[in-house]
């Protein structure tokens, strides 16, 4: 008989561990040098902590009871525990706070390459720094970390979680319809989006705007070409971009269609891509309202890299380079 392990989990053997460790050590050095001290929080939290955060799609998937009958969850990300940590351990300290972490999070997923129930995240949180300065700082740390990991062809998509909802509010779309439209967008169903928008009965120019915005993505030129409400809507993105050093700015792809299903993102959101790998390897963004839910209202921004996916992207890049030489 062979004893199995749960689907979506796996064992890590020395060759892989050595590579992962070397990669995360390089990333940790970047975080520490930028002033982000490493923290660790328990893998188990009370359910109420995550309920407070309004996670939508990323609610904790695993629950258990302790000896007293309290419901415990396996954390589904590190941002919420760090928000809790800041509001309790640093209640009276002067912001800003800079933390980094290398910790496992747990989600219910479809077992597939690079998707696991238990996954290691490497990330930072910058708490108490607003936009655009805080966002620009975190983007710079993100690119430095990806450079140190060894990726050469990565790109960072930069969008704004509030952009599309603001457009819909501007057109006074009623809440039920608004939810339908946002669902189509989160699902990436542009055919459904077109059907929903056309049935709104708004002015054709406004309908065109709602359909064009999520398809608008590319270099700085796409921001220059925008007119009217969209031009105003990307003011925040432009301000962030203006603060970036050239080596970071050249990695950025503006993406007006970037919309995350994570409930706590409020402003800038980013997603890390590598052409050598078909799925995003990290996400991040501003969550200016999350800390307030823990009683310490502070603006905040951070990102999390999926270490396993980072490793797959790195090896895929190396294989690609091998083919060219």
């Amino acid at each position, binding site marked *: 008989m062979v004893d199995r392990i749960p689907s979506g989990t796996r064992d890590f053997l020395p060759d892989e561990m050595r590579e992962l460790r070397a990669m995360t050590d390089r990333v940790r050095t970047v975080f520490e040098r930028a002033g982000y001290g490493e923290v660790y929080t328990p893998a188990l939290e009370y359910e109420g902590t995550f309920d407070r955060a309004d996670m939508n799609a990323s609610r904790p998937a695993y629950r258990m009871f302790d000896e007293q009958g309290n419901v415990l969850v396996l954390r589904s990300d590190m941002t919420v525990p760090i928000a809790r940590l800041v509001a309790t351990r640093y209640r009276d300290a002067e912001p800003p706070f800079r933390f980094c972490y290398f910790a496992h999070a747990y989600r219910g997923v*479809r077992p597939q*390459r690079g998707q696991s129930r238990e996954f290691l995240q490497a990330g930072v949180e910058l708490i108490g720094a607003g936009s655009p300065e805080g966002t620009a700082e975190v983007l710079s740390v993100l690119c430095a970390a990806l450079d140190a990991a060894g990726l050469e062809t990565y*790109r960072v*998509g930069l969008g704004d979680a509030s952009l599309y909802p603001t457009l819909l509010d501007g057109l006074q779309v009623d809440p039920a319809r608004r939810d339908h439209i946002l669902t189509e967008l989160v*699902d*990436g*169903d*542009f*055919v*459904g989006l077109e059907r929903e928008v056309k049935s709104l009965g708004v002015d054709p120019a406004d309908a065109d705007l709602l359909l064009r915005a999520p*398809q608008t*993505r*590319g270099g700085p030129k796409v921001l220059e070409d925008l007119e009217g409400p969209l031009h105003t809507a990307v003011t925040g993105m432009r301000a962030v971009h203006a603060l970036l050093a050239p080596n970071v700015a050249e990695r950025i*792809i503006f*993406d007006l269609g970037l919309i995350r299903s994570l409930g706590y993102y409020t402003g800038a959101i980013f*997603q890390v*891509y*590598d*052409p050598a*790998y*078909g*799925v*995003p390897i990290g996400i991040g963004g501003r969550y200016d309202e999350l800390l307030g839910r823990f009683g310490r209202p502070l603006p905040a921004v951070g990102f999390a890299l999926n270490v396993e996916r980072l490793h797959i992207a790195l090896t895929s890049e190396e294989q690609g380079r091998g083919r060219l030489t």
Partner: protein
Amino acid sequence: MTPLRIAVPRGALFDETLDLLDRLGLDTREVRDNDRKLLFEDAGIITMRPSDVPTYVEAGAADLGITGKDVLMEQFERELYELVDLDYGHCTMVLATVAGEDPAAEALRRLGVVRIATKYPRIATRHFLETGRQAEIVEVKGSVELAPLTGLAEGIVDLTASGTTLRENGLVVREEIARSTARLIANPVAHKLKAPAIDALLERIDAV
């Protein structure tokens, strides 16, 4: 050579898909001349069965793909962008039973549960759930019309274009579940990183 790799479905959508790609300026002659070959590097085309298209596109093994809405509905959890309704390959997902008195309704009335054979277990499950009826879904891989004729099931959920196969087997459509057409889908990462090439293709699709 195109910078994009497109997953093309063999089967019912194959010819019209190649016609579309011709109009978009791709060279599909080699694909048409080769029944067995699967990877056409020069044309940027890979061929496969329609239900595999989302798998390849989601993983990034193809940047774009063409497949039926029926396939996308059955594999609804895939992380993909659905870009364009290509308006060919029209067909309908239906619930069908043998002609005459409806045996599915009879089973629901007397047994409380109806047995449904289908190649689309998730669409069928969802349809019965949403209409508040209890169904036992039996998944089959081949000719689903056989199931109600042999007593395996009272009804079938299947895709039909003209209804000919249903008629020839003495089956009639009882309910329409959804309409389906061919869709252009994209890998989300390719959609960001190969935006100029994909947008150029979308513009040509709008033009033809």
